[in-house]
């Protein structure tokens, strides 16, 4: 552990909804949003309404709110976000209106619903008697007090076939309508997993289809922990660095290699760390500096105090700026020259079979090498190179996939369709071959 790289933790608040943080909002439509909570601001959730930021501040993260009058958000207890629970588990006390409408349904259940759907044809627009204009009007009417409940009841009344539907499809119908009209939302802490969820729904390709489970496995296999010092390539918008910062809590160091002039760490703008904290924790270097450190070190002519005092204000400012840049660049180049990193974490689209062997020496003995790709084929080609490399043992390709279920007792089953992708990992361990043994080459390599 390199003590010099352990920084003070700022004590970023992950538990209480705090001013100016970016947060993660879940809507009943299973829509998601990232918003910044500027004090005195107003946040619009589109058709679900607006709320004043001040009315949610200082609540714990994880809280669910409903929008009441004057753009005020009020904390409620609701399971409206579940895929649904059987009503026998609902408690009588403290019941919210979201629950009431599901209670309403449960009486329907016994009396009117059929056990099967033999008389129901596919639901087309003709079956629903309310027009969307009427629904809009109802929505306006009920905006202040009823928050959608009234609409849903009206919809049920006007749906001629409602009683002919099976219990299950009745529930689905009400659920669908709830999701459309209830003005409730949940504010969650913008954890790495939530940020990943956001990118997954917004632009899965830009994070190279990285799944939460692959991300978690990558971080664990690389043995990421507070206080570690890691070499990282992150072509996933900085999401991997964001995750490591969450896990390490600013204790330790990341050296990030990038392929363009500047690193793309767009994710970090959502973190609640200051630019200074980030700069202290994440050092960036490009591949040219990485491979040609001596050429790329900046030879900055140091001026004497006297010389500096003779400069104009503008030129003096320039001088200090250039000096600081040179120091930063030279420091990270020296850092990389020192090597002995506690792990290599790569999520890169570069051709790894050629690249990886050029980096292995930078990693400390017994430390992990973990490469992510959404192509198993690329990792296989890379692994074939590692199999002939005496500096890496026990390398293998891993795949992990999470399969979510419709989590309703009595109706448990895996979701019918899920998004593909998620990617693969190549994991190996850096070793230091013995001198004599090394000479004999591959023959001596057990794996």
């Amino acid at each position: 552990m390199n003590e010099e790289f352990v920084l003070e933790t700022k004590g970023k608040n992950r538990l209480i909804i705090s001013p100016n943080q970016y947060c993660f909002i879940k809507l009943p439509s299973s829509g998601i949003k990232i918003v910044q909570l500027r004090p005195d601001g107003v946040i619009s959730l589109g058709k679900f309404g607006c709320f004043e930021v001040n009315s949610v501040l200082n609540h714990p993260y994880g809280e669910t709110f409903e929008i009441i009058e004057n753009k005020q958000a009020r904390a409620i207890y609701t399971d409206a976000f579940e895929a649904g629970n059987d009503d026998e588990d609902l408690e009588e006390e403290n019941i919210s209106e979201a629950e009431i409408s599901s209670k309403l349904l449960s009486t329907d259940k016994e009396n009117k619903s059929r056990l099967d759907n033999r008389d129901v044809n596919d639901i087309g627009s003709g079956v629903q008697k309310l027009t969307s204009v009427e629904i809009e009007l109802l929505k306006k009417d009920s905006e202040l007090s009823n928050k959608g409940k009234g609409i849903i009841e009206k919809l049920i009344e006007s749906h001629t076939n409602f009683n002919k539907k099976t219990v299950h499809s009745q529930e689905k119908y009400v659920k669908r309508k709830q999701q459309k009209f209830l003005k409730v939302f949940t504010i969650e802490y913008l954890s790495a997993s939530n940020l990943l969820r956001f990118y997954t729904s917004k632009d899965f390709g830009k994070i190279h289809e990285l799944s939460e489970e692959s991300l978690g496995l990558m971080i664990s296999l690389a043995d990421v922990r507070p206080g570690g010092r890691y070499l990282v390539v992150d072509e996933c918008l900085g999401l991997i660095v964001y995750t490591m910062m969450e896990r390490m809590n600013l204790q330790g160091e990341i050296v990030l290699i990038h392929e363009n002039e500047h690193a793309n760490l767009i994710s970090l703008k959502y973190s609640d760390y200051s630019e200074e904290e980030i700069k202290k924790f994440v050092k960036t270097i490009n591949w040219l500096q990485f491979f040609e450190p001596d050429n790329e070190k900046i030879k900055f002519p140091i001026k004497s105090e006297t010389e500096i005092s003779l400069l104009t204000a503008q030129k003096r400012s320039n001088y200090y700026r250039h000096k600081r840049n040179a120091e930063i660049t030279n420091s990270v180049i020296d850092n990389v020259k020192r090597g002995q990193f506690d792990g290599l974490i790569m999520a890169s689209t570069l051709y790894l079979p050629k690249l990886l062997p050029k980096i292995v020496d930078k990693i400390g003995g017994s430390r992990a090498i973990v490469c992510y790709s959404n192509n198993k084929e690329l990792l296989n080609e890379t692994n074939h190179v590692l199999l002939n490399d005496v500096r890496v043992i026990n390398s293998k390709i891993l795949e992990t996939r999470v399969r979510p279920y419709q989590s309703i007792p009595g109706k448990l089953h895996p979701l019918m369709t899920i998004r593909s992708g998620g990617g693969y990992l190549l994991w190996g361990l850096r070793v230091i071959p013995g001198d004599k043994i090394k000479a004999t080459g591959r023959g001596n390599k057990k794996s």
Partner: protein
Amino acid sequence: MSFNEYKEYIEEGDLVLAWLSRDNFKPIYIGANDNLNTRYGSFPHSLMIGQRYGSQISSKSGKGFVYLLAPTPELWTLSLPHRTQIVYTPDSSYIIQRLNISSNSRIIEAGTGSGSFSHAFARSVVNDERNNGLVFSYEFHQTRYEKARIEFESHKLLNNKIILTHRDVCKNGFQVNNFPENKNINNAINGDRNGNTQMNVTVIFLDLPSPWDAIPHLDKVITQEHEARICCFSPCIEQVERTIRALSSNRWVQIEMVEVQSKSWKSHKMMIKDIDDVVNRLKDIKRRKINGIQELKEKNARRKRNSSDLEELQPNSEEGKEAPKQENKKARGFNPFGRGLRVLEGDENYNWLNITRMEPEIKSHTSYLTFACKVPENKSK
């Protein structure tokens, strides 16, 4: 001590995982007078002290070698004998990620089991002047509890990161008093009305046969100010049903059950068998069959002519070693795919395609993971 920090050099007393062969790690505690004996040879610990972690060392005979690795929760899990209580890395890493564990997390783990997951939890938490993380681990099985206690102690995790308790949490709940607590921390904790130390738990992992019996006890120990997150780990689907009902009636929300399915592959090479070679081989067989009939006739004729010369034609003993193989090879004729020969994967005399191959046995199922969250009630008004 290297479960707690990265080390560059091996010292006496260290826990080292000796890598013997693929996925075969042997844990050893370095003692100056000890020996590691494997089927690859004998390795005196004295030669390991002072070596860099990751070093390859030779056996005394020089014939075998091992690599000396620093333990990590993942390698430790791989080194465990396959007991049923192990939570494997694809599950544990997902749970840690999804529950958003960091250096300040206050974690409940029940039961401790093999302790493999405890190590992963302990890696992430820090308990010092600036960090307030802790793992509260519970085990009701006496022998397993003892074993875990000894293990955590020798891994220097006991009481600084893991508070281990021998208890049936389903009956007696989770409250622990008198655990070492850092009073300097911002959100330091005072006793509650009953004089109990507040544990302020934010993360719960239940690997119990009947989690529904333990869930009602959680309210007393989880954080009263913030959100708590839970994961229940159950092999059977009926347990999941009861767990979901219990979570729901105890007002946990955002309930979702998932399965983790994972696979691993080794890289291999597959021989490229060109159709032209197949056709040429069939032609060669046909040709040799015709020639064979011809040869047989000639041979028979020759044998009749000079049977006395045969001895002289036999090779001497030196050449004899090679000869049968040569003859076999020749007898086999055109043999583009090394049929009947021992061809090593990747032999340069043949063409190969890079492929992957799965491990022969797949972990088809570990357990179902049921996740949920709870925000304190007094905050929800």
